[in-house]
């Protein structure tokens, strides 16, 4: 990953119109590519509403963890403790949902996560502990605290045990009556492009969890709060140049503390989503590294809300595809990837970047050969798909990444020279 020096003003102004316009073109190309592949290979599951719905459910916990990372790192604190805060969130969600219902459960998860975040803030902001050391410690502590509390809270409850909560109610879902049936029948037709778009629409209008809506509000709300308000400008200035912020009268410690605590709350809510929407209860070891993946999604997303959401969706989509019709879907995706790489090779050649063109052509050619010579992908490889896919996209997009200038650096009040 190449991290360039801060482009002083560009990073602080809102995304230009041309940029958001480009996203829609990418999306359209992606849908057309997937639809063509579906018709061509007969791998119907790659754009089915079931896969897309599973992708959203897999993506949201990762996105919320990533959003937590965004808050923290925008204020200049690296947060590798997201995994631990997420674990605390799953436990909080399990306990409070069982006793008081899903909404209190979500709140409880946020509070539990925030406690982890506050601990991280205490260590890194107040005491100036190295961010990585504190984060790793929080991951270990959270694991221990969660398994201890789970045994204390859930043993003896009906259906519960020392390592799991009782089965819990799921948050309410909404369906738009007419539309959900209409899109479903349109999807079943299997038409080029029309059915794929119908499946996409079906995910929105049918069985949409209210927690998903909450998560989307949080993600886009963060974009507004951090980039369109004085509060956000001050918070981000703590991550770019805390000394400069200090000379302008910003209480840097307080902003960092708020940001890191909020970071924990968001990661905790990601845990709640995992325990309540993706599964139906708390379980030890449930997070399975999703906090770290959230961190990666945030970096890939260039420390921006829309970017991290895209990263999470890529990961969630490939994960859902491999878990559903494993070999077949991933086999079809291999074709998409190979063709995309060959297209990139041509584009790089036109730009004059010979080395990149040759590399992309070779990898794309190998992928295409593999695709043509096999009918399915063995399980060992399908399991890697989400990681490989995310890594590839990361590698292709990494030239433009720019982290907050003072991210991860120890800041002491009054050291500004």
């Amino acid at each position, binding site marked *: 990953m190449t991290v360039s020096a801060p482009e002083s003003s560009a990073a602080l102004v809102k995304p230009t119109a041309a940029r958001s316009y480009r996203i829609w073109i990418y999306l359209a190309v992606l849908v057309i590519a997937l639809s063509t592949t579906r018709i061509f290979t007969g791998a119907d599951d790659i754009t089915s509403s079931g896969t897309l719905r599973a992708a959203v459910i897999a993506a949201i916990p990762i996105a919320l963890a990533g959003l937590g990372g965004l808050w923290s790192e925008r204020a200049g604190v690296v947060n590798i403790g997201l995994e631990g805060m997420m674990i605390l969130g799953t436990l909080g969600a399990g306990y409070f949902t069982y006793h008081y219902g899903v909404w209190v459960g979500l709140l409880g998860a946020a509070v539990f996560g925030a406690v982890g975040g506050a601990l991280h803030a205490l260590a890194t902001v107040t*005491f100036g502990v190295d961010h990585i050391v504190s984060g790793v410690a929080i991951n270990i*502590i959270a694991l*221990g605290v969660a398994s*201890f509390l789970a*045994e204390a809270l859930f043993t003896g409850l009906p259906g519960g045990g*020392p*390592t799991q909560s009782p089965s819990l109610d799921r948050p309410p879902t909404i369906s738009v009556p007419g539309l959900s049936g209409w899109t479903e029948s349109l999807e079943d037709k299997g038409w080029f492009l029309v059915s794929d778009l119908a499946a996409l629409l079906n995910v929105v209008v049918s069985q949409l969890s209210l927690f998903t809506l909450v998560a989307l509000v949080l993600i886009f709300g963060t974009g507004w709060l951090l980039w369109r308000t004085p509060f956000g400008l001050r918070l981000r200035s703590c991550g770019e140049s805390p000394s400069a912020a200090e000379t302008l009268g910003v209480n840097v410690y307080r902003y960092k503390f708020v940001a890191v605590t909020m970071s924990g709350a968001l990661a905790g809510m990601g845990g709640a989503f995992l325990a309540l929407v*993706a599964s139906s209860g708390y379980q030890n070891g449930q997070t399975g590294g999703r906090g770290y993946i959230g961190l990666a999604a945030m970096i890939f997303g260039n420390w921006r809300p829309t970017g991290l959401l895209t990263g999470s969706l890529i990961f969630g989509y490939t994960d859902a595809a491999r878990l559903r019709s494993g070999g077949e879907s991933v086999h079809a995706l291999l074709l998409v990837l190979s063709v995309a790489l060959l297209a990139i090779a041509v584009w790089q050649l036109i730009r004059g970047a010979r080395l990149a063109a040759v590399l992309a052509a070779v990898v794309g050619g190998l992928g295409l050969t593999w695709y043509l010579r096999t009918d399915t992908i063995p399980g060992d490889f399908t399991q890697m798909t989400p990681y490989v896919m995310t890594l590839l996209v990361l590698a292709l997009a990494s030239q433009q990444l720019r982290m907050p200038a003072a991210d991860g650096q120890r800041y002491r009040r009054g050291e500004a020279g």
Partner: protein
Amino acid sequence: MRRLTKIAAASAVLALALTGCGNDETGSTTGSEDICEGSSGNGPKIGLAYDVGGRGDQSFNDSAYVGLKKAVDDLDASCKEVEAGTGENDADREERLRLLADAGFNPVVAVGFVYSPAVATVAAEYPDVNFGVVDGYATAIKEQKNVADLTFAENEGSFLVGVAAALKTEAKNVGFVGGVNGPLIQKFEAGFKAGVEAVDPKIEIQTQYLSQDDPQQGFENPAGGETAATGMYDNGADIVYHAAGKSGLGVFDAVEAAGEGYWAIGVDSDQYLTVDEAQKKHILTSMLKRIDTAVFEYAEAFDGGSAPSGFVTYDLKSGGVDYSTSGGFVDDITDQIDKYKDQIIAGEVKVPTAP
């Protein structure tokens, strides 16, 4: 600042203390009934070491406990239970086994294949103590007189639920969700497939493993289990069998969401008895793995002076594996399933162990 440092130090110590509790090695078993507390019989002194999850997991640890309870009731045994923590290594497990052996417990039963290397090591140090490993492979590491691996013919039990699935499917399409893709779970898959094919080779079988090598992703991942099973129901299956530990709870969530006419098949214990009320009407049957029988019979054999050694397989013939009938959903086909059962016991039908 100094005060803050003190507070930080105190909270760090507290956190460490809590972490220690979470991983309590000799952990007191919680719960209202505790069979070992008051047991002081003259029979064998049984030491039982649980796998991660411990008693109350509604799965194989609990099943081992049932066997222990029976031993206390029927053999007048006394006992001690110890629990495992998360993230342990072989040295931790060895220490736990030595603890039991030093305290005079004999036989010592370890629950879960993870104990195999530890048992192979410790058994050599205590030649007078008998060790049994549920699902173990300690004999494969080192053959010893005082070590027995209590294994099961999961393929035979899976064959029977495969027969049940084949007789009950209307879509002519069934699914199998496995936890980790390795020899142990492949035994389930092979038996299930053979059972389905024995009834009707034209039935389509979808197979999905949640992970290739990571137990956490495979066995503790209900979200993944639900995604995989939902995919199978979406793709035309109406019955899904799982061998994925706690990830199977996600399979049950998926069948509930799929609605009327869809079924799931449980594993290890009779899962009809432990799932939610709303899910009960979807649990066709369960493949039973009688760990309680294994634990009890091992203790009984020891009590009779002839503790077995080497690989001991509990199969259909010995009642080590079976299928459940709770809920009454397979009542109309038990004749046919039992016919296959008799053929397997008689050796007329051979069930493969690898797909």
